[in-house]
């Protein structure tokens, strides 16, 4: 930290105060954003922080001028937060920033136009990021992390400010997305529901009028929620929407979307091209796709085991596991095709013994009861058409389309 003279500190602080007040009075949102953006670690902010730490009595400076003292509460909390942030006391920084955010939102509520929306976005973003950092600090100190939760409720408050009628409504989706991020991180995904309801049921504001980036984020998160619920058609539409409108340059975002969209597509019978997996570095799905193509149960299980942690964390494990039935279907189809080549007349009769043998080749040891059980399930779920003759241990396939394709519908529908 370079040495800063008292006069220099005073100058910097006053300059900041001037710029802040000017930005507010001229409704200059972009300047305001720069002034509030902690996490950008911009040099002016850092030097201001140093100056504040040196000067210590910034609040008297604020009080000196009427112009500053109008925003005294906002600025005082902001300065305190910046100070703590600079010295690495993130919990303190968060607490002060929370107070600042409250004051700012209060002020924002009084501004009739929505000029400061961008600045509000910055505040929402910063408070979430700061809360995450503060929680990290708390956990490292052995305390229970709770700041993100607090940030969530503050964001909810902001959402309340924006969700009404009027020009500010356009910002509601951004806050919603921040809330989603918070809730997903906290694991309190069920809290998303109320926000979603208010977004989707509000008829006063067309969803399409929200900014595109927010729409994409929103669709991504709601799509993920649908994956949790295993509502694949809905997840498909939402995630496809997100993919379609996502900025193609943002490969990371596209990859995130694909991470969920691919399992969803797989479970409704759509298999991606290898290039897609290659291009977006989604290697964890390569083997699974192969297994589906080949009807290789063993490969599927290996792939699942190999990336178990990753799949569990992202929440697609159960979805991928359910692909097993499709793999079985593929296997049956292969047996059927082979039988057809050797003996077309009796190809539609699959002996359980034969299936068990095929599975044994895959190192899947199953006795006839289990094979029968699986065939029962396949028939029940309409992945195989036909019936199972228990007595003769034979699956009799329908002569017409014995292995119906999913065609975009989930299994069992």
């Amino acid at each position, binding site marked *: 930290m370079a040495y800063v003279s008292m006069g220099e500190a005073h100058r910097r602080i006053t300059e900041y105060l001037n710029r802040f007040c000017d930005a507010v009075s001229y409704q200059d949102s972009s300047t305001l954003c720069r002034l509030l953006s902690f996490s950008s670690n911009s040099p002016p902010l850092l030097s201001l922080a140093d100056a504040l730490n040196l000067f210590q009595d910034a609040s008297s400076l604020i009080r000196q001028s009427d112009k500053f003292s109008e925003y005294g509460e906002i600025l005082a909390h902001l300065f305190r937060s910046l100070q703590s942030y600079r010295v690495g006391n993130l919990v303190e920084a968060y607490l002060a920033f929370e107070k600042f955010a409250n004051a700012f939102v209060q002020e924002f509520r009084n501004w009739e136009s929505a000029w400061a929306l961008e600045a509000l976005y910055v505040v929402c973003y910063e408070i979430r990021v700061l809360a995450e950092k503060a929680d990290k600090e708390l956990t490292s100190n052995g305390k229970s992390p709770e700041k993100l939760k607090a940030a969530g409720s503050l964001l909810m408050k902001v959402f309340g400010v924006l969700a009404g009628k009027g020009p500010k409504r356009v910002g509601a989706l951004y806050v919603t997305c921040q809330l989603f991020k918070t809730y997903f991180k906290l694991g309190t995904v069920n809290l998303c529901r109320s926000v979603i309801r208010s977004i989707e049921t509000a008829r006063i504001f067309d969803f399409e009028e929200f900014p595109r980036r927010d729409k994409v984020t929103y669709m991504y998160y709601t799509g993920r929620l649908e994956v949790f619920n295993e509502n694949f058609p809905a997840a498909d539409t939402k995630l496809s929407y997100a993919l379609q409108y996502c900025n193609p340059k943002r490969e990371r975002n596209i990859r995130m979307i694909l991470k969920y969209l691919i399992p969803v597509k797989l479970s409704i019978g759509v298999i991606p091209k290898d290039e897609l997996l290659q291009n977006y570095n989604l290697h964890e799905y390569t083997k699974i796709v192969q297994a589906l193509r080949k009807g290789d149960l063993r490969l599927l299980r290996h792939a699942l085991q190999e990336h178990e942690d990753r799949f569990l964390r992202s929440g697609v494990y159960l979805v991928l596991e359910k692909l097993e039935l499709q793999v079985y279907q593929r296997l049956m189809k292969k047996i059927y095709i082979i039988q057809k080549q050797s003996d077309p007349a009796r190809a539609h009769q699959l002996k359980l013994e034969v299936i068990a043998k095929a599975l044994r080749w895959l190192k899947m040891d199953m006795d006839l009861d289990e094979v029968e*059980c699986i065939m029962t399930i396949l028939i029940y779920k309409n992945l195989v058409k036909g019936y199972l003759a228990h007595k003769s241990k034979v699956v009799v396939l329908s002569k017409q389309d014995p292995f119906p394709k999913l065609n975009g519908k989930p299994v069992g529908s």
Partner: protein
Amino acid sequence: MNQGGNTQAVAPMDPNSIENRYGVDGSQVHKYSYQYSTGSDSAPWTGHSAEHQAVDNGNYSNSNYYHPQPTGPATSNAQEIPNTASFTSSSTSGTANMAQGYSGYTPYQTPSDPHNYSNTGYSSYYSGYQQQPSQSYPQPVGAYQNTGAPQPLSSFQNPGSYAGTASYSGTYYNPADYQTAGGYQSTNYNNQTAGSYPSTNYSNQTPASNYSNQTPASNYSNQTPASNYSNQTPASNYSNQAPASNYSNQTPASNYSNQTPALNQGNYTSNPYQNYTPDAANTPSSTIATATPVHHQQNYQQWSEYYSQTEVPCAPGTEKLSATSAYSQSFPVPGVTSEMPASNSQHAPSYVQHWGPETGASQPPSQQSGAAVSTSNDAYWVHQTQSLQAHHHVPPQNHYQSPLEMKPLYETPFQGHQRATYPQELNSQSSFHQAPLGYRQPAQATPSVDTQRVSKVQIPTNPRIASNLPSGFTKMDKDSSAAGAAQTPAYVSVSMPKSKDHATAMPEPRHFPKSLRGYVERALARCKDDKEKASCQDALKEIIMNAKTDETLYTRDWDTEPLSTVLNRNVTVTESSSTLISSLQNKSPTRRPKSRWEPLLEEKPFVKPASTFSSPVKFGAWNHQNENNKKNSEIFQKVDAAIGFKPTYSGQNSAKKNFQRPVKRQRFSGGAATAIDDEASSDSDKDLTPYYSSAVALASSAEEKKRRDSRSKRFERVQGHNRGNDLPKPKNANVGNVGNLHSRRATALRLSKTFDESGSRAVEDIDWDALTVKGTCQEIEKRYLRLTSAPDPATVRPEDVLEKALLMVQDSQKNYLYKCDQLKSIRQDLTVQRIHNHLTAKVYETHARLALEAGDLPEYNQCLSQLKTLYAEGIEGCSLEFAAYSLLYITLHSNNNRELLSSMSRLSEEAKKDEAVRHALSVRAAVTSGNYVMFFRLYKTAPNMNSCLMDLYVEKMRYKAVTFMSRSCRPTIPVSYIVQVLGFTGAASEGTDEKETNGLEECLEWLKTHGANLITDSNGDILLDTKVSSTSLFMPEPEDAVAHGDRNLDVNDFFTRT
């Protein structure tokens, strides 16, 4: 407000603007009344009907309600002045008609001088008021009185009674709709009540004191905001009046006078109205059609409740049972009210509070209605008894045309109202959610007489359903389980008075029929007077008659009948129809399990509602109801004696005479607390100290009373200042809620104050060590008792003793309940001393295992959550074993994918190697893929207690498997294969051979109960016919299902444990 409303009403009739409407309505109503008074022309009636309809138009949902009302008046009108066509037209008219109706109104007014009208109207009003009870009255009256109070007197009586009843229905409905009317109320009210009433029959019928108490001007003034109500009431009054004129012709004034007593009662209830009006005030702006609809519905419901209550009183009135039923209804009402607000999101806050009071009010109204109804009750009875009159009633309601005898008609309209309201009421009471449905039903009921009857029957059922629904209620009463509350709102309330009966009856669902019998016997036994007995018997007879005629319906509804009808039904059951009893038994089982908890619920719900809801109001209402009930019962008796209307009226008169007496009786019937109740419940006392009286009335036992008293005192302490107000009901309600909050907050504050004076210290920084108790008790055995105060070290066992206690429990041969109790007390002692070590883990583990063994999942969950924190703190224990349990639990019971994923991802590599965890993971895989073969193999090889958790899923898995098989396999599957694959092993058999056959038998039994189709082939093997079975399979309702999930935890055990 009042004045403004009045002026508007009087002066200009602007039917055009909706907002004006209300005001207009009020005015119209007045005018109508005038018109009626002057010369009951069919036109006026139409006007009324139009108004009603108009209201309907405003609120869609309301329309249903309204219809009943309009029909009522319409019928009366039709009878009197066969303008059926006009009525019908008006009724049919939609919103558009509203305006028309208004216009129509104005014309009506023109013919006669407003003043004259007013006079006549007043008279009619009076009559109406009397019955309608004070509340509605006052508002309209005010305006009327101004015009000419004196005149009404003459016309009054005659129409009064009828009008009263009619008005009741009308008022109830209307009130909600016409909120603007409020202004009318305020001024008029006082005047009327004070002056006009006395002059007329009122003085005779209802004690002046009552009126003054009930309808104090102050109250009204308070209420004035409820302008809407007043409007409504006027409408009702009008309807009343119109009929009244007819009535006067037809029916002797004496009858009316009888009815008027009811009105007096109504006065008591008037308080509720006041409350009501505040609501209206809250929502006054809401006059908008959309907003109002909700209100209307609510109001209707409430009204309906009143009706139902009145009904109840009628049947049970003589009996104590009836009183109880009324109570029960009232109870639900509060819950409803609370919920209602929720539904009305916008108005919710204000509503809730108001509603509480309103409900109370509503009850009184019901009482009033009961009294008023008394006339109507007669009709009711007729209906119930299915006498000719009842039939008459129905037709009129349905088609205004039916020109029956004047008297019968009158009655019928009333009945119609009541009935119509009934369904609504019931619905509303029982379930808020259902309320809309209930509304529909009422509407339906009105159309056809039969349907009406049905509706009656159904209504009871709805309430029960509703009872389940009243989640809102449950919320209010945290202690009381929602289900319990839902189930036995009525019971609970009933139980208050008859706690013993209910307690015994409810606890043992299986024996319920018996208990019912006993219940009836007791009810009879409690009859201290011959009169009561007679009335009781009469009620029983009627019930029986109804049951016979409507047997099918009753049988169907038995489950859900508890509220008002229950009493009746019970009586009937006990007395005669064994079939009914059987039906009860059959249907009751599902409910019964829940009922087990009723004893607990009874206490808690009562107390809490009282506290939270500003019970005073309710209580007051209760008392009123009781009185009403008594009256009603008397009336009923008389009615029974003489089916004729007049007799009934006389009955009412007698009721008046007996007025105070009845009250006492009811209280007696109510239960142990009777003595206190009697004292407290005196009419004057009620008004003055509704709070106490209510509390007292509810208290079934001395202990409860004490508890309640202390509680109420607590509230007083907290919010004494609030209570100083004249409006006991609303405030009390507020006080109740606020009081709870306050007290809670207060304690919290105290705590925080002591610990953090600076205000910066977090809760976690509090020095809990200083508060920790060090136990000194050396007893190994200790019963669990939930702490209600700071623990006494003398009763807390130190760690070494607890260790012995744990060993003792582990070695104990006693049943799970005993062990559970002991373990809970050990846990408590550990918690109190803040012991967190291996012993704690051991205790929780032991308890969790025992709970699993017994299938007590709630207890298991408690333990598991504690264990999780203990393991997280690094205490070893058998964490892996419980990780497996937790996995299994999530897979098999919570069915939450996210939870499953997160708990799977939390498993360490080491954990995944553990046998139990691996087993659990395989079970999960088998379950998610539906692999039943795998599942049952794992079931047989389960380590630890894994199989206990799987046990609970076996049924589902088997069902799934058989569905799969029967869908996929053709043509048959041998049952022996199913036995093998689905793990049927037979129960507790030794030899292997025996085991197999046992398994087969068990499997056959299982398949049969699940609707499988079995055939036997030539070899004598039993096969499952898959094609047939694939469509016939079903999941039977578990016969031994119990609310708490374990049939072993029979209530009897709790009682025998002592």
